[in-house]
């Protein structure tokens, strides 16, 4: 043992950070899926969507959601940063390692890190737009019926991928599940949520076109 090691040994910080990472991650997955279901209320018609949005604004649920997302994303990013290889040498080693051992779950972890970093930027933009413009079907339709469509499509794929892989990893690490059946279930869930998201986007897109 060296002196600098005595500063960190026997402390429970590592455990707590791991806990923050896992819990914030799980909450964010739950949030994402609820969010996608709410957005899909547009499938029931413009009125359903606006009623839900109005309800959320009336009871300040929107504010709560924004505060939650800032806190949860902040905690999650803070906790996972320690895992992302920071030094250039480590980056080089880890990518070469993944190429060498050709192991799927190792690749998916690297993609998770990449999609996670990209999403941080997308989330910030998304939250800003919603906070400044509020939620309204006409506004959404207009936005989707522009170049922003690509923003939403990319965002949808990144978010669902990151959430699904993250959930898989959390459950596998804590060991409450069989790995391979879990993978299958999560793939199906991801395809469904992405499908639902794409259909919602398509509805908004055609609404924007007809207006």
């Amino acid at each position, binding site marked *: 043992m060296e002196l600098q090691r005595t500063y960190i040994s026997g402390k*429970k910080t590592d455990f707590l950070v791991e806990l923050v990472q896992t819990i914030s991650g799980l909450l964010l997955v739950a949030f994402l899926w609820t969010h996608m279901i709410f957005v899909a209320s547009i499938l029931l018609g413009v009125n359903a969507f606006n009623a839900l949005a109005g309800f959320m604004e009336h009871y300040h649920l929107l504010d709560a959601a924004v505060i939650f997302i800032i806190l949860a994303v902040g905690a999650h990013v803070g906790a996972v940063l320690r895992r992302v290889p920071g030094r250039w040498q480590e980056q080089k080693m*880890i990518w070469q390692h993944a190429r*060498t*051992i050709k192991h799927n*779950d190792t690749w998916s972890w690297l993609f998770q890190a990449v999609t996670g970093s990209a999403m941080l930027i997308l989330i910030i933009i998304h939250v800003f737009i919603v906070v400044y413009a509020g939620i309204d079907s006409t506004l959404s339709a207009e936005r989707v019926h522009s170049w922003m469509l690509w923003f939403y499509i990319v965002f949808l794929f990144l978010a669902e991928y990151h959430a699904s892989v993250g959930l898989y990893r*959390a459950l*596998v*690490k804590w060991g409450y599940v069989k*790995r391979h059946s879990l993978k299958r279930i999560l793939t199906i869930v991801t395809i469904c949520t992405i499908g639902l998201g794409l259909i919602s986007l398509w509805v908004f897109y055609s609404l924007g076109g007809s207006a």
Partner: protein
Amino acid sequence: MSQRELAIHIFRYNPEDPNDEPKTETFTLQEEEGMTLFIALNKIREEQDPTLKFDFVCRAGICGSCGMLINGKPTLACKTLTKTLPDDITLMPLPVFKLLGDLSVDTGTWFRDISLRTESWIHTDKPFDPEAEEERMSNETALQIYEAERCIECGCCIGGCATANIKPDFIGAAGVNRVARFMVDPRDERDEQAYFDVVGSEDGIFGCIGLMACDDNCPIDIPLQGQLAYVRRKMAAAGWKR
């Protein structure tokens, strides 16, 4: 059986020689009935290049000395039949461990260090009485211990682990599995806090990021996912109470 010609691409490097550079050398070899990589490598050394370095002892999947990257997959060369591989075979030494030369690495020093750091011995205050009958344990417990004890220290779970590749102090799945073995042993009197001191950190169980390369690659199928999860849950409970 149609005999193929195998092209075996082998990583060559002698870290002792300051003029040497890492490179890949290709040897061609006629495949034979029932050929393992153990046979193939020995043939190459006998017939083509006597300086080729690699390790084998038991050639039966017991000693754990022949772990290497076979077309990227960390596994035992003596247990790998060439007929399960394509015509082109790439062999590289296991990463993480000290490279002795070509395909030969030093796993022993690494595992000894892990044994010391995880304190892999029975901790007890009971005086030892050589005359007394051994204490009994349930068959179930004995089997659980045996499951973990089967580890042959081949290092495949360590070489395949991305975390172990960039964090030199990470004890890896073999280290965690070792600790799990003592956790279930009723003769070991350590409480969960004592185990937490040993594995409740980033160098121990909380450094694992769940890539499961270890679980996918253990050549003797120790259920490493289960062992990691078992220790993780125990250490979470211990950490919570701390």
